[in-house]
Structure formats: structure tokens, C-alpha cells
């Protein structure tokens, strides 16, 4: 449906926008194709010491400088600046070309969404080479809270790791808030936010209250979710092919909705979501879509 130069904007209106941005973002991330993985050994034989790599193992995602490949041992051994790994334990690897600092974090697991979206064999590839083309502009405190949510089918219980349930119980006993992190299997593991120095990320998060001082947005974004009035007011500054605006009907301020309707009526070309993208809004959700020529 999208052609380069088109800015396809879809707006949805929910009775309460809680979770809407995060769920839609999960959908975007899940729908991105995964780049196929090359065998790690093949890559390791080609690269020079000092190259920055992202390494995926059974339990970790590591960003570090490559130092050496030792094939004289069995199995072969990968040496990084800060750690060493037997190559068969390396599930995926790619060369990075950024000024990123060495960092590691727990391996994300996609949980129920992964099963529903049939990530299966592509999950490793998604962690090593995430599409990294989505941004959410909204209220960071709320987004972070929602990212820490676990999703499961009705009747199932979410598969929380035992360590996490223990940690949450300990925090609750001390009456301290507990922040669920990437690696615990919450929605954050699918969205992969680029928040506090992650070793792999797919989605940039922006606070709408600070966005003006961070413009312009990076040029490699393909989609931006503008969550709520604060975010939507920056629509004019967003030039990605897809923009998804989320209006919260429970918020009395309707200026953002007015700005959107005005844009649709002056410069927009309406798109029927059912025909164009095969989606009908569920009960209680109002949606309208249109394209705007850039």
C-alpha cells in the first residue's frame, strides 16, 4: 500500500489509550521480516580484531569488541574484550558499525506474543538484527510501566521466570517498586526499547514533553507511534512512511483530534482500513486512516 514519499497516517481513538501504543508497537515489530542469520564462524573468520560485534548466546546478548577466534581448541573459542565463548553456544552474531559501548543484557524471550506471532526460528535473528525502525512518542513513565506487563491468553498464567517472581515478592515485602526489565519475558522483550543502554533494541522511545529539544527524528525510522495529544502535536515534524496516532477519548482535550481531522480534510487522501490493510477496528475503537503526500 505504501509508496516512497507517502506518509500514511492512521489514527485510532480508544476509550482509554492505556496499552494501545504498546500493543500496536508489538504488532509493528512482529510484522517486520527477520534478516536471515549467517553462521557465526563464517563471520568470525572475516572480521578484524577490534570490530564491534553483537553476540547472542543462550542467555545473553552482548555488544563488545572482537579480539580473536581460536580454532585450535575444540570447540572453537570466540574471544571478546570482556568475555570468551565456545562458538557452538553463539546463537547469532553480527557486526555493528556504531560508536556503541560494550554492554550486555539478559536474552529477551518473546513469551506468549512470540507464540501467537509464531516467531519460532526467527527469534534469534530478530534479537541479533532487529529492524530498529520504530519510535514511540508518549509519556515515558506510562510507557515503561506498560512495557513491564506480561501477556497471556485468557485462562493461561503468564510464564514468569521464577527469579522474577521471587524478586517481585521481595520488593513487595520491602514496599519498593520493582521495574521489570528486558529479559524477563514482558512486552518489553518484544518491543526491545532503546532505553537504558540495551545490547539490542528495536524501538526508540521519546518523551513527548522533551521531543522539541530532540528534533529532528532519525532518518532511518519507518514508523512512529504518536501516543496521545502530547505526541500528536509533533505530527508536522514526522516524515516517516507510517505514522500511527493514538487518541485517548477519555482525555477532554480534543485539539490533537482536531489537528488530525484538519490535516485529513486539507491534505489527506482517505484510506479504508478494512480494504487497504485488512483491519477492522474492534468494538469501542474508532479509526481513520489517510495518506499525505510529503
Amino acid at each position: 500500500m505504501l509508496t516512497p514519499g507517502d506518509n500514511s497516517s492512521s489514527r485510532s481513538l480508544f476509550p482509554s489509550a492505556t496499552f494501545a501504543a504498546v500493543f500496536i508497537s508489538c504488532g509493528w515489530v512482529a510484522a517486520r521480516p527477520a534478516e536471515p542469520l549467517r553462521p557465526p564462524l563464517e563471520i568470525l573468520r572475516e572480521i578484524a580484531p577490534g570490530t564491534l560485534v553483537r553476540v547472542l548466546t543462550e542467555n545473553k546478548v552482548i555488544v563488545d569488541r572482537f579480539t580473536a577466534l581460536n580454532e585450535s581448541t575444540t570447540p572453537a573459542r570466540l574471544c571478546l574484550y570482556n568475555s570468551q565463548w565456545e562458538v557452538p553456544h553463539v546463537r547469532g552474531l553480527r557486526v555493528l558499525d556504531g560508536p556503541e559501548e560494550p554492554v550486555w543484557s539478559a536474552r529477551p524471550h518473546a513469551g506468549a506474543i512470540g507464540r501467537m506471532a509464531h516467531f519460532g526460528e526467527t527469534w534469534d535473528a530478530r534479537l541479533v538484527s532487529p529492524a530498529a525502525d520504530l519510535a514511540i512518542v508518549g509519556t515515558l513513565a506510562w510507557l515503561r510501566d506498560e512495557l513491564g506487563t506480561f501477556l497471556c491468553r485468557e485462562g493461561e498464567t503468564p510464564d514468569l521466570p521464577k527469579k522474577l517472581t521471587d524478586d517481585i515478592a521481595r520488593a513487595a515485602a520491602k514496599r519498593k517498586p520493582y521495574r521489570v526489565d528486558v529479559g524477563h519475558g514482558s512486552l518489553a522483550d518484544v518491543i526491545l526499547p532503546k532505553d537504558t543502554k540495551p545490547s539490542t533494541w528495536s524501538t526508540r522511545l521519546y518523551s513527548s514533553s522533551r521531543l522539541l529539544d530532540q528534533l529532528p527524528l532519525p532518518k532511518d525510522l519507518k514508523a512512529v507511534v504518536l501516543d496521545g495529544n502530547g505526541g500528536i502535536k509533533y505530527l508536522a515534524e514526522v516524515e516517516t512512511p507510517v505514522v500511527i496516532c493514538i487518541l485517548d477519548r477519555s482525555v477532554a482535550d480534543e485539539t490533537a483530534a482536531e489537528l488530525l481531522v484538519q490535516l485529513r480534510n486539507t491534505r489527506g487522501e482517505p484510506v479504508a482500513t478494512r480494504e487497504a490493510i485488512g483491519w477492522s477496528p474492534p468494538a469501542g475503537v474508532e479509526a481513520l486512516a489517510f495518506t499525505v503526500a510529503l
Partner: protein
Amino acid sequence: MSRIADLNRRYAAAAAVGHNGVEIVAVGDPAGARLNAAVRGLLAAVRDDGPGLWDDLVGAAKALRSRLVTQPQPISVNPALIQASEEVRRQAGRLRGATADEALLDELAAAALAVGVSDPPLGAVLLRSVEEVGPSECVVVAASRPAQIAITNWLRATGARVFTAGELERQRPSVDQAYVVGPPRFFGSSLVTAPVTSAVSFLLPAWFRDRSIPQSVIAAYAEGAIRIEGRLFTEGDISEPAGTDGVPEMEEDFLPQPIWGARKSADREPGADEVVARKVLLSGNLAILLDDGDRIRALDLEQPPGERVVYTEVNAVRPGTYLLLRQGDTERGALYLAALDLLSTKGPAVDTAQKAWKEALARRLKEVSYPRAIRELRACGVRTADRARAWTDPTLMRPNRDEDFEALLKWLDIPIQPTFGLATMLRRAHHQASADLRDQLEKAVSEADLSVLERDGHWRLDIEREGVRGLIATRAIAISPFTEIVPRHDARVPFEDRSGQWLE
């Protein structure tokens, strides 16, 4: 209740109201109907006569009439109604002799006197409804903060909870029934399209004929659009004075309006040191002249601490927006100096380059006429060409889009570098200075009692901290329907203004 349980309840309430619609209870109120007819007679006379002479009487009469709709307490606990009734009679008295229409003034004064001494029938129906359902099983929703305070005082003994629409949204009490005092159009669409309770009833005097139910702004174009139906019930004596049937009131006719006077500026393009601005009346008897330049600092009370200080588009400033202003100064002037300061040794070079392209732009705009300049810029690929005049403002760093700025410099015959690089450097420094100020503001706001701001509509930051001294947060009450040409240095600086006195 967990957020998810709360969310589920919310969707269930929206589904219930979507399915069942809302109840509209129209209560007969002969005294109110008589006043309404008199006010409409007055408005017709003003239409023929023009404003000026009548302004204060119209303001007072509309204030009285709107209180009949929003504050239906018995007269013994209704000082606002008594006061408004007296004010109408006082203003009518002042006009005696100044107009030939004595009968109109007599009828208005008599009708005002009648509603000022009798219990509004709407109040009795509200009280009975609350008692039937049980005060702990329902909430009452008031149309404004003064109405909420007044109805709370009256219903205190029953234990019923009374909220404004905003409070209802924030507190989300777990009850199923809401009694809303006033017609649907006095409230935002969110009250019915995103209801907190699964049943919503509006109570209003039968003489208020406009019972339309608002829908969300996008509903007219949306798939899955939600249209809420109303079921009308009438109570009591709904007869009306002769000759008043039919035409529903428009809201702009109904609520008290600010006094804007007439437009003073001639029909001309603004000069180099002038801007086109709209007057915005603010809480605390203040006003600003708001030009269509860059975004303005505002306060979003719905946001969590740390994300409340925001920027808002000038055209998104509406009644209810809280603006953050400085007394005697504008933020952009201060930020520009702070940004140059951050650039230290490069500051003077940046300043010189900025002045050069801005002066060249101002000259060119003068030479070729503004509309032609915009046409030419568009033809060169400048997408935001209509901002051309704003770019002459020294405190606006540069066009946001790189492509626009490059094309603009070409159009001005200025080499792209070093001007482009220096302006971009300045923009980065400006971002830094703005982010620093923002952090200070967030800190100041986090120390403030926001309920005071909501109650009073304005609040002064009495903190002696560099950068936030003399700051006021104030709610926009009304925005002028017309623009004026004003000196640039007057724009966005708050000043005393009392033209919003009839507004609640």
C-alpha cells in the same frame, strides 16, 4: 484496582453506554423558562442595536441563566444564583433611561427576581434521583469547578460524591450511575464516548432545547464511529412562555462571553518589528498577545511528574490550556542569550551569520511582497514557506527542515556554508539551553500544589531560582476571534486585563 482491571471496566462501560445510550431528563422550570425568554429578547435587541451599551447586562443575564442550568441547589444554599439575580437587576437599572426598551428591562428584572427567590425544580429531581439509587451507588457530575463546590456543599449531608468531569476521569469511582448536571453539550464528548460509569443521565431544565449529544472529533470520518443515542424523559410542568418554541439556542449565545471590543488594526501586512497576534484571556485577570510563531511552553497536569512541562502549538492553545509565562519577559529572548552563551567563543560568529541571513530575508520580503515571496519559496521547494515571516525573528534559530533551510539560503543568494552549519550549531545549543530550563521548570512544578492551580486557575512560582523567577502558570479562558498587529516585543508578555469578568 489494577490498571488492567480498571481498563477492562472502562471498555465494559463504553460498550454499555454505546449500546444503551444515555438518559436525558428534561425538568419543567417555568420561572427559568420565563428568564430564558427574556434573555433571548435581550439578545435580539442587542443584535439590532450592536454591542457596547448592553455588554454588562448581557454578561450578567447569561451568567444568571447558565447558573440555573449548572447550579440547581435550593435558593437557601444557592448564593451564586441570588448574586447573579441581583446583578441582572442592578445592570438593568443602570440602563434605565439609556434605552427606549423599558418593557424589555422590566421583564428581565422581574424574571431575574423570580428565579432569585425560588428553588430550581431541577435540584429537587437531582436530589430524588440520587436518593433513589443510593448516594454511595452513584456520582454527580458538575459542569464547572464553582458548580462542583456549590453542589457538594448542598449534598454533603446525603454523602453523595460530586465531581467535575476532569475529576471523574482522574478518580474513576467504581459506581455504575452518573448524574450529570447540565446538558450534554456543556461537557466534552469523552463523558459519553469514554464513560467511567456504565449508565449516564443528564439532568437539565426543559427550556434548554439543545439536547444534542457530542461525539468524538474524528467520528464523522471514522470507521467504527461511536454515536451515542439519548433517551428523553420529561418531568414536571414543561409549558413555556408563548412564542419561545422551536429554535434551539447556540452555545455561543448561551454562555457568557468575554468582551473583545472591536478590531483596532488596519488591514495591512505587519512591519518588520511587528507580529500578527491573537489576544488570549488568562485566569488571574491576565492576558497575552499570542503570535503564530514557535511553540509556547505549557503545563499538562494529566502527565506524571517529570513530564508535565511541555511545548504546545500556538494553534492548539484552547480554553483550558495552562500556559507557563514570565512576567515582563518572554522565554525565547532568555533562551537565545543562554544558547549564545553555551557556544562561548563561537557565539559572535553565529550571531553575525544569523543576523545576516535574517536581515537579507526581511529585505527580500519587503522587496518582492509577502505573497510573491511565499510563492517563490514554494517553487524552490521550501515546504514550510508560510513560516517565512517568522524566520526573520532573531530568536527563531532556523527552518526545521534541512532541505527548507538550504533552499531558503539559495533563494537569498547566500552560500549554504558556513551559515547552515552555524545555525545548526545554534539550534543544538538552543536545544540544550531549553532542556536545561525545562528541567528547572519541572523541578519547580514538582514542588507546587497542583490542586491550587486547578482550583484558582493560576499560580505564581514564588521560587528564587535563576531562570524560573517571576513565572506564572495560568489557564487560558478565552481566545479572541480576531487578530491584531502588535509590536513584536509586546507579544507573549502577560499584562493585566479584566475583560473575562463574566466568565466562570
